[in-house]
């Protein structure tokens, strides 16, 4: 049992760490609401949303630079570096899918960056054509011709075996603009929450129930949060995993070119845990977990156990790609889906009831 004093020091330390770790800073103004609910409304954007989005931007910048380096020196090593940068950016992005609400949905940053499937017919036609491929041309393309999966298609190739020598000049031009366009979108996403920008969404959260246009009551924020946590469970288990599994067709698998699907799914579920703990990269603050624990410790324990179990379930695959697992490890795929469904049921049941019962204003 950690003493109250130590706990406060730990929390201060965590906040300081976050502030130090972010070059732009994510200092969120207090909201004059000393209740735990009020503190969560400050710490969620301060310790999770802002740092998570900033991390996506940073990593998208590294990916863009890696593509520039690859174009300058098109070696297999530089292609591998670009592929790794894609995976790193992807990890930060997939974890923010654990709480998809706010600008990421309102302004369609999600479909702009992460539409699936790619429109392969049109993408091949674009590459075969001589149409202009500047960043503004990319911005005008349909969602299914840009973003993570268009980049993935070009740098990994069908089957994931692309070599540097196979990347054409036209593909390089396309990649340069695709990665710049994606980076620009991540910047917009960061700005949309940045407390120093006018009209930012952080203020909508911190003032929930106290003047926020978006969340008339504080419970509206918590319901949006829990709803988004439950939604990603359904998205992973019943769509991303279910569709290729039920059809026994790995070409229906989302990150099929990079074979990154299992990592994608795992990070989605970790994102739920981040949302519950107001935590990113170890830094944490006042959280929904703390609120649940203060009134119903067994529910908090149940949720934490189920979140950990859903994340751990992916290790059943032992590194097998999802593209293979749907054929070779059917029982394990089913077990993972079951673990996610168990968590989803608690989020939609007990936790939703808890929020509706305990947060009245």
């Amino acid at each position: 049992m950690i003493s109250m004093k130590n706990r406060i020091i730990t929390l201060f330390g965590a906040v300081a760490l976050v502030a130090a770790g972010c070059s732009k800073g994510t200092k969120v103004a207090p909201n004059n609401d000393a209740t735990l609910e009020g503190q969560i409304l400050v710490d969620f954007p301060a310790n999770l949303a802002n740092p998570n989005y900033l991390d996506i931007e940073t990593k998208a910048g590294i990916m863009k630079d890696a593509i520039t380096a690859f174009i300058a020196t098109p070696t297999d090593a530089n292609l591998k570096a670009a592929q790794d940068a894609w995976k790193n950016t992807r990890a930060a992005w997939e974890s923010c899918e654990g709480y998809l609400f706010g600008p990421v949905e309102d302004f369609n940053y999600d479909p702009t960056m992460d539409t699936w499937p790619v429109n392969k017919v049109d993408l091949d036609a674009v590459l075969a054509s001589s149409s202009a491929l500047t960043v503004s041309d990319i911005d005008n393309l349909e969602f299914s011709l840009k973003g993570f999966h268009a980049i993935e298609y070009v740098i990994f190739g069908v089957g994931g075996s692309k070599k540097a020598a196979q990347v054409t000049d036209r593909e390089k031009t396309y990649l340069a603009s695709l990665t710049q366009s994606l980076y620009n979108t991540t910047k917009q996403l960061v700005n949309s929450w940045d407390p120093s920008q006018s009209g930012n969404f952080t203020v909508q959260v911190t003032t929930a129930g106290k003047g926020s246009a978006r969340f008339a009551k504080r419970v509206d924020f918590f319901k949006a949060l829990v709803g988004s946590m439950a939604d990603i469970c359904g998205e992973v288990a019943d769509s991303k995993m279910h569709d290729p599994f039920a059809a026994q067709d790995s070409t229906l698998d989302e990150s099929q070119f990079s074979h990154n699907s299992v990592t994608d799914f795992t990070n989605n579920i970790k994102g739920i845990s981040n949302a519950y703990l107001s935590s990113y990269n170890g830094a944490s603050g006042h959280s929904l977990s703390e609120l649940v624990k203060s009134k119903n410790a067994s529910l908090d324990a149940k949720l934490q156990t189920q979140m950990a179990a859903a994340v751990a379930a992916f290790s059943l695959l032992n590194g097998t790609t999802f593209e293979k697992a749907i054929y070779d490890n059917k029982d394990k795929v089913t077990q993972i889906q079951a673990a996610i469904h168990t968590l989803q049921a608690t989020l939609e049941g007990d936790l939703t009831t808890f929020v509706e019962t305990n947060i009245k204003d």
Partner: protein
Amino acid sequence: MVLAVVVLVKCQKSAVFPEEQYDDRLSGGDETVFSATSTAFGNMFPGLTGYDIHVHQLGDAVFGQTFVTAPAPIHNGLGTIFNNTSCTNCHHNDGIGLPTAGELQSSLLMRISLPGEDAHGGPVPVPSYGVQLQDKAVFGKQPECKVNISYDYKTYSFADGETYELRSPTYTLSNLYTPISGSYLLSPRLAPPMFGLGLLEAVPESEITALQDANDANGDGIKGRANYVWDGATNSRKLGRFGWKANTASILSQVAGAFNQDMGITTSVMPVENSFGQAQYDGLKDDPELPDSLLNAVKFYAQTLGVPARRNTTDATIKRGLQLFVLAKCVNCHKQTLTTGVNIAMPAMSNQVIHPYTDMLLHDMGPGLADNRPDFLAGGRDWRTAALWGVGLFEIVNNPGYYLHDGRARTLTEAIMWHGGEASQSTAYFSNLPKSDRDAVLKFLKSL
């Protein structure tokens, strides 16, 4: 005179919500959902059970899915010409769309026709174009045109001097892929919200037609006529319920029509590509591109989205706003209560008292809103009374939210002040109210 007004108020007040009409928060009867967040329009009927839940979720997934050019392993059949690439790109968060055309997130489409009526009394297709303009195309194909929208801004005043601004749109076409000879009629249509449609479909035809008052027999200055339209899904003439001019008979026809016309995806209900006979036609023998299982899942999804509950109904200002809404005769068209028919096969939507704030009828809305393009029995100035349930959440679900058939209104005040024709008396009533009362009406609308 003072006495008369007081009596009138009292009398009207008691008619606001008779007790037998249940809880006025339950806009969708048993299928009301208690959500006021950005996902408030996307919740399934609470009454769904078993396999119905699975079908709803399947429809939800397809609704959110981006479609791609055929051939492809999944979600194929987009275009070749289209208005958008997924349902949700227009119906953002299952809500009202964005009034722009031709951009990635645009939700405004343009209907087109020649003057006159076709064999079924409907709009006459324009050769080489049909009855809807597809302003986007897959890579390498030419969109039919570009739709240009420009606004003219004018400032007006309420009786007390407070000003408001209205923007009047002008729509023009450019970049036509082939010339159109002679004159043609245009009608802009904004993607509407998706929830509550199954309940509106379940209201018996007799209940809707009983509300008609084509000759204004009751002398309230408000008429109201049903539209009767040709329903391609059943090859029969039916009561029109959906679309801004009640120009579509059923959710199935609406969904199949949207797949075909808005996205270029063929179904068993509409198996011919929207570009058939045109230069853009794909020539693939892959129709219908969307299997019946998925078409029906999306239809079922649209049928079973619950209605958000009203909020703060006991607030004194909101109650005052509702009284004024009644006194302004807004309710004479925006009918508060309808009852769905008994349906043993679908208990969730059977015999429900609902509060949609629509009579499902056509009304003359005056020259300001007119598109001057008839659609079956709907004339150029007629629009179907928009259901107002959920209208108070547009700002949250579709930040910032737009109103009316083409999204010209940016606020509820603008939407009210655009009303003309049969609604002129209500607009005048609102305009003459003191500011505190106008605000009460708006606060009431925000509670819907």
